[in-house]
């Protein structure tokens, strides 16, 4: 195997716009925050849990007895963040702290706005700094501050009356996605307009795209095989649903295609034909984009189109010829 394969790596952000049903207990806590009030809940041992939880962590009983709690209390322990990150609640250094509010028996996690770590101490008293505008989120508490700090109470009145039952909870995860060796080799060939698969040394089946191993035999594959532009339709579906952020307009044909000389199918689009004419066994060939647009991507092939060749008998599609190869 050639060692010229580049390491292909790409930043990749996976994002979902989740929503969250709060349920009655957390919902009431958030509704109280919106009114700039703190509520805890009485546990089965009579202690006040803050923030409120739905089920008692010791006895597992369902809890429902809300208790008003002060918006000031004592720092039980803390950790200084000298270099805040983007997702942090403050862009200047701050402390994460476990704060036991007056009237509560358990501490809750929040952040303390202090000028430097020297200002922080276990046992110090802090008070909530409410946001000017509240929405029923934990960030309605714009951090805690040392109790002596003067705060302007220039609040916007909250006009919403409906209790909070759900919140938005989007999540974005940024990865550095590295293609493996086999994929990098395959994509480097694709960039040159070539379709190169790998043959399993044990069963002789040819994989494209190559995965660097044969899942049937459990062995590594290194032997490279250049394949043609021609393929056979193994099966297909006509999709009537648009793919988000994809210019393909439904209904479009997604086919499982087996390239000549390969023994496994991959998915690609089929075009330049009537959807109703597509059939299992049909012969097709790749339609490449203009060479100047080629990159490290299967999208170099725009789609496959039918060619004037007789259909392949179904039992022969993707199968090794007798005696291998």
């Amino acid at each position: 195997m050639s060692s010229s394969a580049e390491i292909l790596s790409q930043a990749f952000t996976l994002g979902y716009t989740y929503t969250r049903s709060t349920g009655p207990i957390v919902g009431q806590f958030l509704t109280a925050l919106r009114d700039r009030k703190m509520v805890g809940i009485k546990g089965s041992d009579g202690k006040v849990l803050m923030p409120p939880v739905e089920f008692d962590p010791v006895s597992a009983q369902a809890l429902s007895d809300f208790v008003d709690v002060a918006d000031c209390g004592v720092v039980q322990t803390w950790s200084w963040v000298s270099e805040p990150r983007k997702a942090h609640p403050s862009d200047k250094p701050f402390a994460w702290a476990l704060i036991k509010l007056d009237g509560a028996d358990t501490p809750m996690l929040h952040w303390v706005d202090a000028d430097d770590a020297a200002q922080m101490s276990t046992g110090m008293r802090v008070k909530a700094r409410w946001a000017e505008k509240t929405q029923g989120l934990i960030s309605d508490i714009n951090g805690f501050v040392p109790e002596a700090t003067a705060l302007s109470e220039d609040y916007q009145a909250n006009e919403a009356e409906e209790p909070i039952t759900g919140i938005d909870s989007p999540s974005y995860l940024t990865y550095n996605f590295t293609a493996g060796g086999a994929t990098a080799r395959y994509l480097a060939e694709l960039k040159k307009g070539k379709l190169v698969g790998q043959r399993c040394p044990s069963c002789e089946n040819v994989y494209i795209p190559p995965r660097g191993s044969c899942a049937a035999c459990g062995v590594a594959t290194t032997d490279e095989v250049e394949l043609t532009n021609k393929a056979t339709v193994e099966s297909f579906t006509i999709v009537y649903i648009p793919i988000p952020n994809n210019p393909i307009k439904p209904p479009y044909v997604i086919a499982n295609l087996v390239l000549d000389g390969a023994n496994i199918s991959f998915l690609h689009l089929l075009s330049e034909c009537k959807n109703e004419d597509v059939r299992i066994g049909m012969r097709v060939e790749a339609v490449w984009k203009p060479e100047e647009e080629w990159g490290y991507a299967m999208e170099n092939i725009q789609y496959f189109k039918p060619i004037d060749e007789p259909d392949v008998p179904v039992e022969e599609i993707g199968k090794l010829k007798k005696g291998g190869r």
Partner: protein
Amino acid sequence: MAQLAAVVGVGQTKYKTKRGDVSIAGLVREAAQNALNDAQLTWDDIDAVILGKAPDMFEGVIMPELYLTDALGCNGKPMLRVHTAGSVGGSTAIVAASYVQSGVFKRILTVSFEKQSESNAMWALSNPQPFSPHLNAGAGGYFAPIIREYMRRSNAPYDAGIKVAVKDRLHGAKNPLAHLQLPEITMKEVEDSPMLWEPLRFLEACPSSDGACAMVIANEDLAEQSPGKPAWIRGAAMRSEPTMYAGREQVNPQAGRDCAKDVYKQAGIDNPRKDLDCAEVYVPFSWYEPMWLENLGFAEDGKGWELTMSGATSLLEGGDIPWNCSGGVLSSNPIGASGMIRFAEAAQQVRGEAGDHQVDGAKTALGHAYGGGAQFYSMWVVSSEKH
């Protein structure tokens, strides 16, 4: 030699598009509490909790088992998470059962859930990735070509899938917990419903549901003391195979056939159609009923659709081997829970607790789940009789 274990309590939530009234914790709690109530037990009676759900991406709560320990009474107890894609509800039940059969624990609470309304399950399954074209259009887009190949090789009539879609919804209308309640559904309505992934129509696909299912599984001594009727676990098996390899049989996967053979052997079943009274089988897309009828040995290869079309799998038509009397995955699909619902509904049938969708006198039933690219299988056979 493994000890006997039995289902002594079953609890489910009502399945619906969105359970906006409860948190994830509230949802699993509801099913778990129902199972405890059914078994007439309390949290203190449980030795361990085994939880299952489909990929974390569905709700975006990573390792939800950590946060669910309060809701499931795990203080001071072992808690374990099982993870096998769509089959997870079934494999979770099997993991729970094996801990009891091995004598490690005496009585286990097992729970599975999905709260699909918190995200978009279809695209959570088909997110774009670097270096590969984004051509996946959800699970339906993946399974439709496999279904097309089944139709080709079996010469099944075009409406066998439509028949299943109607049959399972009519069953679901007998189950008050089922998500879809379509007592008036007709073949024409299914046929006229929008095509999504040809050959699959909208009404031939499962809904997207919120819901949870739970069971209490106990050892022989405790099961005998249980106030309700136990469902004895007579066999349990799991099999996997890779999603992609050259020569893979996708229509009638080997792992499914092997899994069925194993579970039947354990349960002493020679002819599943004759020896079982009913089955709850994971059929998320209509055509998977005839396909699994063959894979699970209820019909010869290429003949599964004949059973379907004859009404043999319909409770309402008096079929000899009703499939999915609860309405199945086609009527309710909280993905992570869907497999466990199959297992639990099989148990309810042999306990005589299935209500309006009870098969008269059912003694022995199959629960089945599959997941991933039809690569994970889990199955159990439960019976009203110990041996």
